[in-house]
């Protein structure tokens, strides 16, 4: 349904009196993926890896500096105004902090109805009916429509944000850390709700989170990003059970266990993620990689098929 090809976003770095462009932040650098209807693509990576910029590009909140996004086979760049509106309606978002994403001065009914009012010509009764239907869909009572956001807890607010995202019957919902601001006992409620909605409405999700277990739980496909590039891409199960890229391995080894008996191989990476302004040459992970060898600092590894997924690592050259 949606396809990103060689998607690139460089933010210019300006300096000095005349704001001369001196270099660029290479936030997203040649990223390709596809998301099908009813499926979830999980994007994992640490801060600065470009996962939020990728989400913004998909939402058309940022324009790519290179590459393209195709929606139902059509490149977005070639769409007319009317088709572009159709695209924007089809792609909605739910953000991390439901305390920041809902206007405190609007009643819940207005919040959920807003996309309908701005995008569709419906009379008041129809809007109210649709709002009640949406609230029911996310498990809130109809009378919630008359209340203000502050009267709800974090989990319920996230339900309101989900109802608003669903108002225009989108086909893809971008979920940017949808549960990380919520209490532990509430997270499972929201994750289960998202799973049910996907099953019932055939939604596609772009799921971004730093909690690896949650991403692995929700996703069909996982893309692991490091410094603006996808280093590993493939079926969620395959990657979660047997990560191949040294960075993915370290990331999953660092994930906290769900049980004290769950022991993992200890891979402690040294150093920190370098700046995306001057990313290391060759493989961007090579300065921290425990398996680094000569070629890594010289040659950029390409994303290639190996062991049932795609890996960008010289260790797997010649492996099918």
């Amino acid at each position, binding site marked *: 349904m949606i396809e990103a090809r060689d998607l690139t976003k460089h933010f210019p770095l300006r300096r000095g009196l005349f704001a001369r462009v001196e270099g660029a932040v290479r936030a997203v650098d040649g990223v390709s993926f596809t998301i099908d209807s009813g499926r979830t693509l999980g994007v994992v990576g*640490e*801060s600065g890896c470009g996962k939020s910029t990728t989400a913004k590009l998909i939402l058309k909140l940022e324009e790519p500096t290179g590459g393209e996004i195709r929606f139902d086979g059509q490149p977005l760049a070639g769409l007319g105004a009317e088709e572009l509106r159709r695209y924007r309606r089809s792609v909605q978002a739910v953000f991390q902090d439901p305390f920041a994403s809902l206007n405190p001065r609007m009643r819940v009914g207005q919040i959920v109805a807003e996309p309908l009012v701005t995008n569709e010509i419906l009379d008041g009764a129809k809007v109210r009916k649709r709002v009640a239907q949406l609230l029911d869909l996310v498990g809130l009572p109809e009378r919630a429509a008359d209340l203000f956001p502050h009267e709800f*807890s974090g*989990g*319920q607010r996230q339900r309101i944000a989900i109802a608003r995202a669903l108002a225009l019957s989108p086909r893809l919902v971008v979920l940017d850390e949808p549960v990380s601001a919520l*209490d*532990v*006992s*509430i*997270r*499972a*409620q929201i*994750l*289960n709700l998202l*799973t049910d909605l996907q099953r019932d409405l055939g939604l596609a999700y772009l799921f971004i989170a*730093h*909690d*690896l*277990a*949650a991403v*692995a*739980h929700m996703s069909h496909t996982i893309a692991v990003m490091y410094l603006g590039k996808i280093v590993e891409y493939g079926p969620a*199960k395959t990657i*979660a*059970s047997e990560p191949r890229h040294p960075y993915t391995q*370290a*990331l*999953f*080894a*660092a*994930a*906290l*266990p*769900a*049980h*004290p*008996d*769950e022991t993992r191989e*200890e891979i*402690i*990476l*040294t150093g*920190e*993620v370098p700046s995306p302004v001057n990313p290391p040459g060759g493989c961007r992970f090579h300065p921290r990689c425990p398996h680094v060898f000569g070629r890594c600092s010289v040659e950029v590894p390409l994303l290639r098929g190996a062991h049932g997924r795609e890996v960008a690592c010289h260790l797997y050259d010649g492996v099918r």
Partner: protein
Amino acid sequence: MSDRPLLELDHLSTHYVTARGTRIVRAVDEVSLTLRAGETLGIVGESGSGKTTLALSILRLLPPAAHIVGGALRFDGEDLLAKSPAQMRHIRGKRIAMILQDPMASLNPLFTVGDQVAEPVRVHEGVGRRRAWSRARSLLADVRIPVPDQRLREFPHQMSGGMRQRIVGAIAISCEPRILIADEPTTSLDVTIQAQYLKLLRDLQREHGLALIFITHNLGIVARMCDTVAVMYAGRVIESGPVRRIFNAPAHPYTQALIESIPRLGAGPTRLTAIDGQPPDLAVLPAGCSFQPRCTRAIERCRHEAPPAIEVAPGHPARCWLADQSKR
């Protein structure tokens, strides 16, 4: 190692009282816990469960509206509740230290890292500036900061989040405390940096014989780091005991649900066990057991009578009526 616990909380209660005394918030209610030297205790709970107030009660660093209204607090055989503010200042930072969640908020942006790491040594041990700085240098090396000589002269904003949190760690261990309380120390850090930091804390614990208290909402941290765990709900410790035992045989329905609600890596797309409803408001607690409105196994008794701590096994109390006549 002696049998006497290093830190002992006995039915400790801390309440917040509003200005006119109209509302009482029981943030910490009848909490009993023990911590032995060199041991790691995890205190888990959701926001508003009272875990941070509990940590601040141990240090007697409570805001003006909060009062310790009952119970006992003993550290190394001494009664902490009987100490004067001046005596407490000698204990805080020297014998009991604390690491907070946000390193940027605990470091002063106007002073160099060296000044800040050296400060507790100068204050508590009366060491001169020059010697305190050389101590600071070795402390930075202890927390694995490369090129400590250069970093000492830099300011907090020149460092990454992970490095700042390690500096906060260096300040915390500077006077060789017996207990280190870490309040959500890694929530603002990335996954691989979190792993580095947890390993560092474990190494420091081993090298300095520290007892650690982890305040966290993350059961994963407990599973990886702790020997014993206390689960808090609505101001009370509803279950505590050895970590393995609690994970394998949780007695309280809240603990059980919490453990089942976290997704497991490699478990596949099984449905998560969600806990319905939300945590209660501490000022208007439900009658009986606080968890009862959300509990799937509540019985009549739970609705009007709060359960006491019942020993399910030695060293494993749970506040649940079901733990009483349970099948164990």
